[in-house]
């Protein structure tokens, strides 16, 4: 019987205040939705990739060694921890097509046993088929190949023909790219038998490790056997490392955003429950006076927090993992290729977060209840005595205190009277400003660093990519009419230091190059003619600084060569290695073979000359590329809108709740003022002054955190291979501040309208 009556009260109270409860449910849901979605996504990424790797027996180590002979295979096999070894030849070749795309060729010793490609169309490649090959699925589609077609590659000037037996994908090439974004029309991979290249030695051994083996130990052991070998682990391998860094990024984000969402939710739960329980004061006293035990009453009021938060948290948990991960997956798979999308079961962490959300709400409720209800029933039945006034610290400074008008003094006293409430309003406004600034700051930053890279760092208008028939660099200056023409040579290389091994791009520039700004803050800095330059982020990853030695291996090398890091460059977005042509020619005895021309301000004659040149494979415009990156930004607009909506919603709910509480507590006072002859306008003015002061402080307080939060988000999303500098333009600060202020004044306006309804007669009725 007892339970039913209280239960009925609970149900009716909740229905009566349904707007508040729905808000609480939705906000608890928001926090867990964020976490559950992001958590499910990075686990989805991890599960899908790990399953893929396991099914296709993906390599753990890639050992670049020349030659990989029978003896080497045996010795590597014997290293403790090694499970399987297979030799292959990995080369990069051009395809005999007008636009000369390139492919990474993996020629296996027999049938692929490690990093087995997954067949998509056509037939599997049999080990006896010397002239057959498997071509990457996307590359085939982009370049118009189908199973049964022939494809001709150019190696060392001579053509080699293959018959495409089938199309495939490979776990080693989840992202097939030379830099950041895949472009199937210009780069792909091809699997064939090593018998085709019978005159070439194997130059790579792919290694799998046994379960539970220590990767680093094995790697070091193999390195000790072959000091000149360049060994890549999954961490250093291009495609795999991108998956790993994305997974880590979302893992970090899964803590960052939900934390904020939880803080917002906590604030709103606190204000809502405070208001509710203060309202129920007389109810609580009545229940106690009826003889209900303290524990029973407390449990009853805890249910006001328990049910909404439990419902909301579970709602968020379940909807999060069926919505967000798929949206993010769709975005990721525009550049990554997985055979399946596998979702991991709900993780322990997700359940924990749900529990935390509920526990947090309960704790807040308990705190509020204890603060308000731990009195004798008689005391509760009397209306809550208004808080006693106290002198403020501010009053000790007479010069300041006396400057405030009478109204000003009242406002200050009122603000400090209920510090918690004032603080909550302050924090609410601060968070709102911070979120708005971040939302705009992220857009500012992306525009900024994209623009900076494509116009500040890259000082040319066109980049003409040349094929292997390109002539001498010097000749091009005369052959193309433009303000300036510079040749560069780009090569994919492997860098190794004591702490890390990575693949990256080397760009060799002319002695007097001017079209790439590689100095501090993307200013111009001429490179010295010895040693190599690393971009700053890459140097951090490699654990090197200027003056340190570093090992570098170029394709076709037998062994890596040691050289000195001459200095660091500052480049946004993509990272890499730079050196001058004289440095290259001194260091290697290889000729400088231009792979691209950087052209500044070509005339229309110059453009025509470019078109006529056969060796020009492709012409890229940095501005077009920057626009493509910016359209990527547009797809994230939804997220920014969400952030802004949350910000404003938060500000509204917090201020409204606190405002209503103030009105209730001061009802008698406002009525007295009315009786004294204060016009409604004047009373509203007092309310406005109070709210506006707190609001202004909140806005000012949110400026720096907004900047910091923007930087934090960008840093989390950066990953290893890119640099995202953060910036917030002053209009963003201004707009965010103005929007917060305008919104806040809107809430104040709504609250002050209630002044009209203060009935003097009712409010001043004796308290009996």
């Amino acid at each position: 019987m007892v339970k039913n009556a209280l239960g009925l009260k609970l149900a009716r109270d909740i229905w009566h205040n349904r707007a508040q409860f729905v808000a609480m449910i939705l906000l608890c849901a928001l926090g867990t939705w964020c976490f559950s979605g992001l958590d499910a996504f990075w686990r989805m990424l991890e599960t899908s990739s790990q399953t893929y790797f396991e099914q296709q027996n993906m390599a753990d180590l890639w050992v670049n060694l020349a030659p990989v002979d029978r003896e080497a295979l045996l010795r590597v096999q014997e290293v403790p921890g090694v499970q399987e070894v297979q030799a292959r030849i990995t080369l990069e070749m051009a395809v005999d097509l007008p636009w000369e795309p390139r492919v990474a060729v993996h020629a296996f010793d027999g049938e692929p046993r490690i990093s087995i490609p997954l067949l998509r169309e056509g037939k599997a490649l049999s080990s006896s088929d010397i002239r057959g090959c498997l071509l990457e699925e996307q590359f085939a589609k982009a370049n118009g190949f189908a199973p049964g077609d022939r494809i001709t590659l150019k190696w060392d000037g001579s053509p080699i023909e293959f018959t495409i037996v089938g199309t495939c994908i490979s776990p080693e090439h989840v992202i097939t790219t030379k830099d950041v974004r895949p472009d199937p029309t210009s780069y792909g991979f091809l699997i064939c038998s090593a018998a085709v290249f019978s005159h070439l030695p194997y130059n790579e051994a792919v290694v799998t490790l046994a379960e539970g083996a220590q990767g680093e130990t094995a790697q070091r052991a193999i390195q000790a056997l072959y000091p000149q070998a360049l060994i890549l682990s999954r961490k250093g391998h291009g495609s795999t490392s991108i998956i790993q860094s994305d997974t880590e990024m979302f893992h970090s984000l899964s803590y960052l955003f939900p934390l904020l969402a939880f803080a917002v939710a906590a604030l709103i739960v606190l204000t809502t429950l405070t208001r509710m329980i203060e309202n129920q004061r007389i109810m609580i006293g009545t229940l106690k006076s009826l003889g209900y035990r303290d524990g029973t009453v407390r449990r009853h009021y805890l249910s006001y927090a328990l049910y909404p938060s439990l419902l909301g948290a579970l709602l968020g948990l379940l909807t999060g993992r069926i919505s967000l991960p798929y949206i993010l997956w769709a975005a990721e798979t525009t550049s990554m290729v997985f055979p399946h999308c596998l979702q991991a079961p709900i993780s322990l962490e997700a359940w924990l977060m749900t529990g935390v959300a509920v526990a947090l709400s309960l704790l807040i409720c308990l705190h509020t209840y204890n603060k308000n209800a731990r009195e004798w029933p008689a005391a509760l039945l009397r209306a809550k005595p208004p808080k006693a006034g106290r002198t403020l610290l501010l009053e000790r400074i007479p010069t300041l205190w006396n400057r405030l008008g009478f109204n000003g003094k009242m406002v200050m006293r009122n603000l400090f009277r209920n510090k918690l409430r004032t603080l909550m309003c302050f924090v609410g406004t601060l968070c709102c400003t911070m979120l708005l600034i971040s939302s705009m700051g992220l857009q500012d930053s992306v525009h900024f660093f994209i623009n900076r890279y494509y116009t500040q760092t890259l000082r040319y208008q066109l980049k003409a990519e040349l094929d292997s028939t390109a002539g001498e660099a010097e000749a091009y200056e005369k052959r193309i009419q433009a303000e300036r023409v510079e040749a560069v040579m780009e090569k994919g290389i492997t860098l190794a230091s004591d702490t890390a091994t990575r693949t990256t791009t080397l760009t060799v520039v002319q002695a007097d190059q001017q079209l790439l700004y590689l100095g501090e803050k993307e200013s111009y800095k001429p490179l010295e003619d010895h040693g190599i330059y690393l971009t700053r982020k890459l140097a951090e990853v490699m654990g090197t600084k200027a003056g340190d030695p570093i090992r570098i291996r170029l394709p076709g090398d037998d062994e890596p060569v040691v050289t000195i890091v001459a200095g660091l460059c500052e480049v946004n977005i993509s990272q890499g290695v730079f050196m001058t042509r004289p440095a290259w020619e001194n260091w290697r005895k290889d000729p400088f073979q231009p792979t691209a021309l950087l052209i500044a301000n070509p005339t229309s004659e110059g453009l025509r000359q470019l078109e006529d040149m056969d060796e020009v494979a492709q012409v890229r415009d940095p501005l077009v590329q920057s626009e493509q990156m910016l359209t990527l930004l547009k797809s994230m607009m939804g997220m920014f809108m969400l952030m802004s909506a949350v910000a404003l919603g938060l500000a509204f709910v917090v201020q409204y709740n606190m405002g209503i509480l103030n009105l209730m507590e001061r009802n008698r006072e406002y009525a007295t003022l009315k009786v004294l002859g204060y016009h409604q306008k004047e009373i509203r003015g007092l309310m406005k002054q109070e709210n506006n002061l707190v609001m202004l402080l909140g806005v000012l307080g949110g400026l720096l955190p907004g900047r910091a939060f923007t930087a934090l988000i960008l840093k989390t999303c950066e990953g290893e291979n890119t640099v995202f500098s953060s910036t917030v333009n002053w209009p963003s600060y201004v707009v965010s501040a103005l929007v917060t202020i305008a919104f806040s004044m809107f809430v104040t306006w709504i609250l002050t309208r209630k002044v009209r309804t203060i009935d003097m007669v009712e409010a001043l009725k004796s308290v009996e």
Partner: protein
Amino acid sequence: MSYITFESVSKEYTTGGERVLAADKVSFDVEKGELCVVLGPSGAGKTTILNLLGGMDKATSGHIQVGGKEITRMGGSELTQYRRTDVGFVFQFYNMMPNLTALENVELARQVCPKALDPLEVLQQVGLGERLYNFPAQLSGGEQQRVSIARALCKNPALLLCDEPTGALDSKTGLQVLKLLCDVREHYGSTVALITHNEAIAPLADRVIRVRSGRIESVKRNARPATVEELSW
């Protein structure tokens, strides 16, 4: 012409379908400078009369005239103006701003009234010269009531309305407050309307209006009003 005239004033409330007549064709007069006591049991309608007199509520029918002004014809902001300048209220439960000191509470009145007196002087007159900077929580009931009176007086009102001013006080303190009200009336020359259910106060008045069930039962004039020292309850 009398200072205050109630002419067949009625106040009707409709709460939940029920019609309640808080005041039923009430008519009476009060002269300038008089101390008028409105007497009656709980629920008789005394507070209603005070509220109407003070412009805090609107009559359903009838005319109220105060000092030549037709109250019943005034709109919301006119009434506020009326309360600002012409009326001072003393409540049963003081209604102090808990957040302001005694001096500041009285200052409140000065903020709205152009012809206000000096709050400091008024507080000294009510005997609270030593307690200017205390908050209401630090004052006793009697002291708070005195601040309330000072606040009402600060406006130098023509009409002083008191709603059970001694209701929350013990007899000794209550007498002190009544003495103060009488002194003040002499000093400032205001008309005072005091409502109470306490019969013992009646002898103090120049005019006693008895109210029952929303109707005037009787209006009597005291030829020789008593002094506070002669009272006891």
